[in-house]
């Protein structure tokens, strides 16, 4: 009988068996692997039962090809430990043989013994493993504990990091380890804070720090542990310039372990990096331990950070207290100083003898004592926060400074007040600044409110932020209505011709972008859409070199414009008048001069032979021109008198019917050459109270005008009356007066038509109107250009005051 032992394979190779020991089948099968289905041992293991084969070539369970090259004809196969097979033991016969029960029993015994041996071996190795594990756990726990203690007691960050690095390097059996802080400077480069363990720091001093490379990046980003059997074979290795891997002279690294250190807040504080020159030195266990240590390190680093902040804040507090010029005070429960108050003494100049007890009250300004004491008494009685303000002696300036005091009660365990602690803050500068600001504000407000100029302020977007009352009056909108709106859109949106006025074109709104003061005149729009002329100055406001707004001064110049136009018109009218006057005055002078010169020549040439009638003729004609001149001069005097409001009326009962008839009779010499047929419709016996000569002047003016501008067409002079008033009308069919000229012709020196063809001062209608209105009446005109005019004078029969 030949024996052999087969082991069931493990893992993925479950389907195979291989021959462990064999002394009959020979080198043919030793070490060979067979699929479990291709041999009887595989069948026995899979079926967990013994199998006896009398003829391998006849039994259907046998894949006979496997046995063909061998001597085997019969066999017996027993699984070892059928409950959890570890293999099988078999006997083979070269001749056909049926295994006897004894043979079966014998082989079964061998199989059982083998099973027991395997069991023992397995148990032993398991125990050894467990022991080993326990030992390592104990060591790791010990290390973690001691490291934890060391870390917890270490608050100096630099030392702490060194402890972490040293311990972690030991823990994972690395040749060297390092901790790098995850601090990036403003250029995005790693910060230089790191510690090295296992090798002198100098070994790394000349190398650049680990950067955010493909290999180091995941650790600094806190993405997880990187553990590599051979770092140089990792696809991430050597990807970054300039070195593409370790720089020359770097300690050789094969095994690589990198663990991020993350704070409680989730921030990655840094990374622990370990190296070993041999491959595969860092196990899962090392990784686990290092991760545990990293967790403790993170907590310790957090604590160290807090400690550092606390220490810094304490230092800040101390330096603040040392530097403060203010007072910190303590009193007993009643408010008395029971220990010297050095800061009080320094501030007020009161030595201890003076400020002890309630001596501090003396340092207060007398006017403020009642108020401060009241606040103090209130705080003491209800134990609440003490707050007061007033003025207190200030030794350095030898005057009084404004202060603000605050204090809180300190209490005994039973809740009763033990004393008070508080501060006194010098707010004098603030108070003075506030006072000055208030004064300036009052001044500004006074100026703005009383200015007759409109003052506007716009922000950088040209929106209204301030307007004074004069500005509101000018634009007709209240501040509330246009606050925050672009001022341009409120009062400057349309040009006088009705077209939109874009803000970009507006000189006022250009002051800011162009940073230059703009001045000029423009036209704004009222609420109702009407326009008004303004003069403006727009000045940009620049703060710290930055344009922030515009201040605009605006003056409504409607009245100025009107006065300006009136003045211009008056000057023009005066110039026209002077030119007309010179012509009119010269007109009688020419015949006067000619008549007198002619007379002189006659007298010189003919002497005594000259007939006296000829002389009388000449002198009469000259005298007529003098009369004409006299009338003209009187007219000028009238103008002067009326202008100066010195027209004196001599009112009497006048027969108006007779007055009109007389005037027409007197004008007869003028009527004929005019070619106009003058007809009358005069009511008889109309008597009114008026100035006879002035009224005659009016009638004469109107009729003369009708003849002058009547183009030789018929003229109708009518007079009607009722109980209260008389109406005189003079109608012609002449050139007429245009609508535009109707108002103007009653003005001084005004005529509807050019002076070329019509003589006269242009004073007649103006004088007439002044006279009629002075007598309480009115004068008006109906006219159509080219058809004719009707002047109508309405006079009260009983005098009233002049119409206004």
């Amino acid at each position, binding site marked *: 009988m030949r024996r052999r032992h087969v082991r069931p394979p493990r893992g993925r190779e479950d389907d195979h068996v291989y021959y462990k020991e064999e002394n009959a089948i020979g080198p043919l099968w030793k070490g060979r692997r067979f699929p479990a289905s291709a041999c009887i041992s595989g069948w026995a293991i899979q079926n967990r039962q013994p199998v006896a084969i009398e003829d391998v070539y006849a039994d259907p369970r046998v894949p006979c090809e496997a046995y063909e090259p061998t001597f085997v004809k019969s066999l017996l196969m027993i699984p070892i430990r059928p409950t959890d097979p570890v293999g099988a033991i078999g006997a083979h016969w070269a001749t056909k043989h049926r295994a006897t029960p004894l043979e079966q029993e014998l082989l079964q015994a061998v199989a059982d013994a083998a099973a027991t041996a395997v069991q023992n071996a397995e148990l032993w190795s398991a125990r050894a493993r467990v022991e080993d594990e326990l030992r390592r756990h104990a060591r790791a726990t010990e290390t973690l504990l001691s490291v934890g203690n060391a870390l917890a007691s270490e608050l100096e960050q630099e030392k702490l990091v060194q402890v972490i690095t040293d311990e972690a390097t030991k823990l994972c059996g690395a040749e060297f380890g390092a901790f790098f802080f995850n601090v990036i400077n403003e250029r995005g480069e790693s910060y230089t804070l790191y510690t090295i363990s296992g090798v002198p720091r100098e070994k790394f001093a000349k190398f650049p720090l680990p950067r955010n490379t493909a290999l180091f990046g995941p650790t600094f980003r806190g993405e997880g542990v990187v553990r590599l059997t051979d770092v140089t074979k990792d696809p991430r290795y050597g990807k970054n310039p300039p070195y593409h891997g370790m720089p020359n002279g770097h300690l050789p690294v094969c095994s690589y372990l990198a663990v991020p250190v993350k704070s409680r807040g989730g921030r990655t504080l840094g990374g622990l990096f370990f190296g070993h020159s041999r491959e595969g030195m860092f196990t899962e266990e090392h990784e686990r331990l290092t991760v545990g240590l990293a967790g403790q390190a993170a907590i310790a680093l957090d604590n160290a950070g807090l400690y550092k902040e606390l220490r810094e804040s304490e230092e800040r507090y101390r330096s603040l207290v040392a530097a403060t010029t203010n007072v910190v005070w303590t009193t007993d429960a009643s408010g008395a100083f029971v220990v010297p108050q050095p800061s009080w003494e320094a501030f007020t100049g009161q030595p201890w003898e003076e400020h002890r007890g309630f001596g501090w009250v003396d340092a207060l300004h007398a006017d403020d004592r009642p108020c401060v004491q009241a606040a103090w008494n209130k705080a003491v009685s209800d134990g609440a926060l003490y707050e007061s303000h007033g003025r207190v002696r200030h030794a350095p300036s030898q005057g009084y400074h404004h202060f603000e005091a605050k204090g809180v009660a300190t209490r005994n365990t039973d809740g009763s007040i033990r004393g008070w602690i508080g501060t006194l803050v010098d707010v004098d500068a603030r108070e003075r600044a506030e006072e000055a600001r208030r004064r300036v504000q009052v001044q500004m407000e006074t100026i703005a409110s009383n200015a007759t100029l409109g003052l506007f302020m716009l922000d950088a977007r040209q929106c209204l932020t301030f307007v004074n009352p004069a500005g509101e009056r000018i634009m007709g909108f209240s501040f509330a209505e246009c606050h925050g709106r672009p001022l341009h859109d409120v009062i400057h949106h349309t040009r006088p011709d009705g077209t939109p006025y874009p803000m970009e074109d507006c000189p006022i709104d250009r002051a800011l972008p162009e940073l230059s003061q703009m001045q000029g005149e423009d036209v704004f729009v009222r609420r109702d859409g009407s326009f008004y002329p303004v003069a403006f100055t727009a000045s940009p406001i620049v703060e710290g070199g930055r344009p922030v707004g515009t201040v605009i001064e605006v003056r409504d110049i409607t009245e100025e414009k009107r006065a300006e136009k009136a003045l211009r018109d008056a000057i023009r009218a005066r110039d026209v008048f002077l*030119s007309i006057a*010179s*012509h009119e005055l*010269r*007109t*009688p002078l*020419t*015949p006067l001069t*000619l*008549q007198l*010169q*002619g007379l002189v*020549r*006659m007298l010189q040439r003919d002497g005594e032979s000259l007939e006296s009638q000829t002389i009388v003729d000449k002198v009469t*004609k000259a005298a*007529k*021109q003098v009369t*004409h001149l006299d009338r003209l001069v009187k007219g000028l005097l009238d103008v002067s008198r009326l202008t100066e409001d010195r027209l004196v009326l001599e009112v009497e009962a006048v027969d108006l019917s007779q007055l009109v008839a007389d005037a027409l009779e007197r004008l007869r010499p003028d009527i004929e*050459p005019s070619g106009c047929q003058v007809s009358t419709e005069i009511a008889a016996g109309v008597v009114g109270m008026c100035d006879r000569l002035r009224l005659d002047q009016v009638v004469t003016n109107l009729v003369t005008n009708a003849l002058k501008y009547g183009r030789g067409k018929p003229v109708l002079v009518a007079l009607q009356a009722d109980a209260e008033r008389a109406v005189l009308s003079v109608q012609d069919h002449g050139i007429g007066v245009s609508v535009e000229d109707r108002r103007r012709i009653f003005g001084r020196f005004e005529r509807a038509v050019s*002076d*070329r*063809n*019509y*003589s006269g001062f242009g004073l007649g209608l103006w004088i007439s109107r002044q006279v009629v209105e002075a007598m309480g009446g009115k004068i008006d005109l109906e006219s159509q250009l080219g058809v004719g005019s009707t002047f109508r004078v309405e006079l009260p029969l009983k005098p009233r005051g002049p119409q206004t």
Partner: protein
Amino acid sequence: MPGGTILVVDDEADVREAIRETLEYDGYMAVEAANGLEALQYLRNHPAPCLVLLDLMMPVMSGFDFLHEVSRDATLRSISILIVSAAAKA
């Protein structure tokens, strides 16, 4: 050269009369016209005068318009015209 005819054109009757009397006293024959139109009508219907004394500012037809008409009329163009005007800036 006393004895010639002189046309006096002026809208002011008193001026015309004074000039006419002066001329007549010196032996001239004076003819009057109250405006440019009357003067033009006279010239077209009478033998040419030896001189026209012309005012400028007149109704109906001014002296300027009269001069314009005369310059367009070949038969009148050679007549001597003396402008007599009170207008300062004529």
